[in-house]
């Protein structure tokens, strides 16, 4: 299902060019609007469809297994942390669902470079560097003890 762009809706902002992992969304040299330069190489990841602020990108099904009349469209709402999906089938049935993107505010998760570099002795530890504090493993990783197993309280 390669993507295509509704030219009347695209404002040429370039967000789809920025996000496309295959680098096949480009800005057209005639109208300065985005377009898919190589539909055969599109792996239908929907990144550009979700990223487009104008909802100007759609995906076209291959005629052999997704004949004309169907539709799969998404709406990404960053502030809500959701992506809504609307699937329309040829016979008129519809499926609507919402999937979450995240549970914390954008920018609240520290990147790897923002942590201190691990020390050499940390290599001997079973823990990964900078395990999330939410795991609550300050006292060491959970382990099985034979005595507790015998008591049935492992």
């Amino acid at each position, binding site marked *: 299902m390669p993507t295509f762009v509704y030219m009347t809706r695209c404002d040429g902002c*370039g967000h789809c060019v920025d996000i496309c992992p295959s680098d096949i969304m480009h800005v057209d040299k*005639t109208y300065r609007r985005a377009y898919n330069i190589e539909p055969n190489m599109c792996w239908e990841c929907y990144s550009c469809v979700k990223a487009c602020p104008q*909802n100007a990108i759609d995906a076209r099904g291959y005629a052999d297994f997704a004949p004309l009349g169907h539709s799969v469209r998404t709406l990404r*709402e*960053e502030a809500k942390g959701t992506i809504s999906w609307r699937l329309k089938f040829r016979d008129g049935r519809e499926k609507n669902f919402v999937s979450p993107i995240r549970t914390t505010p*954008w920018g609240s998760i520290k990147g790897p470079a923002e942590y201190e570099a691990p020390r050499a002795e940390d290599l001997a530890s079973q823990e990964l560097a900078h395990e999330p504090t939410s795991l609550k493993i300050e006292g060491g990783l959970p382990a099985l003890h034979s005595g507790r197993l015998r008591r049935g309280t492992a």
Partner: protein
Amino acid sequence: MFTTNPFAALSATVPPVAMRAYVVAMIVLVVAGTLFDIVHKGSARYFFDNWRRSRTRARSPLGGGELASIAIQTAVVDVLASGEFCNARRRIAHLLTMYGFVLHVVSTVVMVFSNSISDVWPHLWWVGGLMVLAGGYWFWFFIRVDVAAEGNSPWRVMRADLFSLSLLASVTLGLVWAFLQANGSGAAVVFFALYIVATTVLFASVPWSKFAHMFFKPAAAFEKRVSYANGTRANLPGPADKPEQFGSARTAPRHY
């Protein structure tokens, strides 16, 4: 300089009737170019096909009053305030260029066709021209996606630049010509000739440039608002029933 009609001073060498005929010819070129563009690209057929499809599938059909209300919203938000832009810098540059172009063109027509005009029109001609230059060169060197997002040189020219470049050339050369003419420079004739060439390219290149966007963009914005109001939403899902709590991480695109 800012209070004199540059076209009145020009009438000593170019007959007013020739100037008026040129303005009419440019208007005819724009109308003919737009009609050709609509027929050639099938944009009107596409618009009306979408319109019929949207009406057929409407979940809540719209009455005349609702359509009039949507038309007013489109005119105010999408056209007069360039509401479709998600990038604030692009929106400001577009507003400067759009209103500058309108002021410049309207004052040009008034000054060419009217013998006795108030001082306001030459002022508007200069103000409009300077607004076009401010918005246009800001867009050209810093904002357009080729430069800002793709890291290309601002001097790389392609067909998509035909409208922007011919508009900037026309207004720049027009202001330089008026300045030189007001100061009695002999080079004014050269700049006037270049001004006419750039202006002719701007208005005669409608079928090959993005000049026609000022006609099809409002139509597309109207169609989008109608589809949201009648429930079809161009097959898009409705907004999620969740509170806004995470802010936004969207940054300006930068591909290099």
